[in-house]
């Protein structure tokens, strides 16, 4: 069996499962946030009764992150609903806005707080829940009705997916290449529905060369190819990260050598180049080099896929000492990362100093303009901006206005483009500064 099949088998009381089987699995963690939590709670109460209790408060995690710093009264009411529910149900893992516990983007907060454990099953009411597959966990996004069902029963039906295997050759990432380039290349190759209903398993020697944040960038975007989940076999990098953040025991699982795959593709990391997804689809691929000179009006670095500490270190390596030609927005995914901006240094200056000196606009930890949101959202594209962004989606209107155009790229490419005001291959800077 593949890693995904093994996890689904041992969570459904089966010795083995095969693709296409429908199984009921026991859920280890259910995550919800401020957009989908309130309707899920509504359905839960309607179906199980006003006084119904959550199946296991230790397994439910509520992380408000989407519409946080807004005047929108409905959005604020949604956070009030979460707060009330967490109090009524005595939920230990509610990360409230306006308190020290506030975290920011759920998919980064989950690992930081120790909820992404190898071998477990995580469901979340957000499509990028697949991010947690970087830890060897089965993790996928669901809707509110399914979440309400789990809240009452601790179970959910799942169709066992076929697994597509992506093997990376090469023992290091070239200095100008980021995991974002790799996943944009793959999505461009297989298309936005190239992995629909399937697992994308990332493997090979190249995976060892990637730190945990790189792996999260890969698994985060499997949904952009239609994937059900993305997964990476756990190793010492995974275990070290997880052990630091939780005492809960877990069992790492691995794909069998004779596991059956839907398909196998190989990529040589050392031959890959900086990639961009053009408007208005994540599979509309081009190399950064091909798009050199495309005029831009804004740059945005943030979100669960492109707002991690290593993403900002990468951006700062390029931005340091340069002035910027276009408005550049920086949004750390979580409060832990925001603190990292103040302590992590590049050439003796903190990341925050580098960004402030270059004139970047710095937002507070949250989803911010990654999904547009209410009109007053930080960094939202309110008209016909042409933005290069380290986020994960560029469908029409995703970051706000339908008139806007969004190019997706790695933090290196976004930062290089912010310096010149045009799409720029980061190798232009990296040859000079790093090599």
């Amino acid at each position, binding site marked *: 069996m593949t890693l995904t099949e093994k996890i689904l088998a041992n969570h459904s009381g089966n010795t083995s499962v095969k693709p296409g089987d429908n199984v009921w699995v026991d859920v280890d963690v259910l995550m919800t946030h401020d957009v989908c939590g309130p309707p899920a709670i509504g359905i839960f109460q309607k179906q199980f009764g006003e006084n119904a209790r959550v199946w296991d408060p230790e397994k439910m995690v509520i992380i408000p992150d989407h519409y946080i710093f807004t005047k929108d009264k409905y959005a604020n009411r949604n956070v009030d609903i979460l707060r009330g529910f967490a109090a009524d149900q005595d939920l230990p893992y509610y990360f409230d806005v306006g308190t020290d516990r506030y975290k920011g983007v759920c998919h980064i907060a989950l690992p930081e707080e120790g909820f992404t454990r190898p071998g477990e099953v995580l469901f979340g009411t957000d499509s990028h829940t697949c991010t947690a597959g970087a830890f060897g966990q089965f993790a996928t996004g669901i*809707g509110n009705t399914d979440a309400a069902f789990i809240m009452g029963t601790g179970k959910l039906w799942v169709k066992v997916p076929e697994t597509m295997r992506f093997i990376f050759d090469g023992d290091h990432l070239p200095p100008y290449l980021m995991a974002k380039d790799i996943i944009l290349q793959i999505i461009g190759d297989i298309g936005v529905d190239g992995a629909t209903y399937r697992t994308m398993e990332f493997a090979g020697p190249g995976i060892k060369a990637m730190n945990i944040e790189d792996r999260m960038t890969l698994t985060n975007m499997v949904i952009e190819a239609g994937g059900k989940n993305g997964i990476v076999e756990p190793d010492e990098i995974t275990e070290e990260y997880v052990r630091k953040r939780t005492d809960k025991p877990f069992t790492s699982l691995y794909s069998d050598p004779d596991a059956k795959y839907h398909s196998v593709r190989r990529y040589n990391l050392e031959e890959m180049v900086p990639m961009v997804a053009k408007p208005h689809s994540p599979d509309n691929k081009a190399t950064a080099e091909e798009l050199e000179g495309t005029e831009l009006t804004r740059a945005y670095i943030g979100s669960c896929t492109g707002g991690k500490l290593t993403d900002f270190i990468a951006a700062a390596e390029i931005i340091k000492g340069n002035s910027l030609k276009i408005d550049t927005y920086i949004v750390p995914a979580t409060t832990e990362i925001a603190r990292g901006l103040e302590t992590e240094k590049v050439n003796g200056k903190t990341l925050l100093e580098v960004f402030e000196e270059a004139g970047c606009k710095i937002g507070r930890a949250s989803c911010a303009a990654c999904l547009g949101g209410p009109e007053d959202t930080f960094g939202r594209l309110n008209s016909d901006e042409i933005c290069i962004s380290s986020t994960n989606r560029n469908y029409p209107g995703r970051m706000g206005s339908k008139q806007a155009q969004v190019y997706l790229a790695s933090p290196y490419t976004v930062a290089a483009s912010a310096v010149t005001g045009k799409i720029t291959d980061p190798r232009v800077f990296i040859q000079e500064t790093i090599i």
Partner: protein
Amino acid sequence: MIKGKAFVLGKNIDTDQIIPAAHLVYSLEDPEERKFYGRYALSGVPEKQSGLPKGGIPLVEPDKFESEFTIVVGGPNFGCGSSREHAPAALQIAGIKAIVSPGYARIFYRNSVDGGFVIPFESVEDLSTQIHTGDELEIDQEKLELRNLTQNVTYEIKDLGSVADIINAGGIFEYARQQGMVA
């Protein structure tokens, strides 16, 4: 049998186009607020691609909450993007009963089925280039046929397969009750 007017869209219609993120703040429980999901259903689709082949046709007229259309016909990869269940809910609230597409993004498909919002039929061919917005359609679940009464053509649709039981029950809760899983 599901009958009504077709509303035609292209490929890769994502959930931000089905219900733009700015509108996700309304309560689905409150009868007055809920109506806004109907008003803004498919309002994120770029004008030219809304109501093909002509375009420029909104699903719901600007001052209304419900649509005159009943069946959405889409290209491949319908419902990709976010996991928001507000998307199939918005279509249902706007008065849509069924969708016909050659393929769906899985979370949208699952939400449509488990929540009992709209029936996601799979067509054998991509019909979004053949059916016109406003055509009168008839979906015959028994015969697995979609009849275009305006153009007088019949197309094949696929059997709903293993999710038919959940769809017929009206959603995952009703299904689980029938199975005795939930009280």
